[in-house]
């Protein structure tokens, strides 16, 4: 059974505040772990710098006026290809780099989810002001009894918290991945040009 802070005890759904508080604290802990394992290292900084630089270079190269001379055009495409491949390589390195702390963060999130589950299992922690669609309902009504679709389980609230708090916290602290690396993960899409 969850214990609620006396100040909020008058609310029927005071448990929702506990869920939000715990997920905010977890997000802070996760970012601290990531900072210790990744962001403070010089190799991460230089990798991020090179990705940003390559992405900007690529952008300016692509937006420059296309030249009419065929030879210049050919050398330019070659250059673009070279920058593109180096960008892909750096992005892949960055993803590998993040893998290490990703595992630790996943473990922390898993443990916290388990803790919250044991605290609020089968309990309605909040009330939804709308009737969710079937897919969302599976998550929002997870482990709850009764047919009231507006009942909200801990899992849905925790999901919302982790998306909103973590994304914005990362953005605020400047830890979000560089835009140039977006979409280039561990398993990049095959390049049609090389086939």
């Amino acid at each position: 059974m969850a214990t609620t802070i006396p100040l909020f005890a008058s609310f029927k759904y005071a448990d929702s505040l506990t869920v939000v508080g715990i997920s905010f604290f977890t997000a802070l802990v996760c970012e601290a772990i990531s900072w210790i394992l990744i962001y403070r290292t010089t190799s991460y900084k230089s990798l991020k710098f090179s990705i940003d630089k390559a992405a900007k270079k690529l952008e300016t190269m692509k937006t420059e006026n296309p030249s009419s001379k065929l030879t210049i055009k050919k050398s330019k495409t070659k250059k673009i290809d070279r920058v593109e491949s180096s960008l892909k390589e750096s992005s892949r390195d960055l993803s590998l780099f993040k893998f290490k702390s990703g595992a630790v963060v996943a473990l922390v999130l898993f443990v916290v989810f388990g803790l919250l589950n044991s605290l609020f299992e089968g309990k309605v922690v909040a009330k939804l002001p709308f009737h969710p669609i079937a897919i969302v309902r599976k998550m929002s009504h997870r482990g709850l009894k009764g047919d009231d679709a507006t009942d909200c389980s801990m899992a849905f609230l925790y999901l919302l918290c982790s998306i909103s708090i973590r994304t914005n916290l990362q953005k605020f602290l400047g830890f979000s991945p560089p835009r140039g690396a977006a979409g280039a993960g561990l398993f990049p899409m095959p390049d049609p040009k090389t086939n």
Partner: protein
Amino acid sequence: MKEAKSAKLNHQDNNEQIHHENSHLGSFKLAKLFDSEASWDKDQLGDVLHWIRQVVGLLCGLIWGAIPLVGGIWLLLFLAISSGIVYGYYALILKVDEEDYGGHAALLQDGLFASLSVFLLAWILVYSLSSF
């Protein structure tokens, strides 16, 4: 010799960039937010649009929950308002050419998912706490 020189230059460049990033927030001027003549970096514009969306999401969530508004239609209204504000901001106030920043879709989806979850969280929390 040449390589050493270029490595040194690269290192200097690196340091300058890090210094530039550190002073990035400090040099950011509020007046630029409403200046249609100002030139925008793709990252900077993306960040500004992201935070506008988050603030709109939070405010709408708090208001919707406090009134309280009930029903899925209000979720759609929020999406319309939020996208309208972002579009109005970059197209009418900043007057940027969207093609330079990856088109309307790229600008409009910046921070959309995060703001939707901020909105839902605020709406659900305020509604649950104030109406029951």
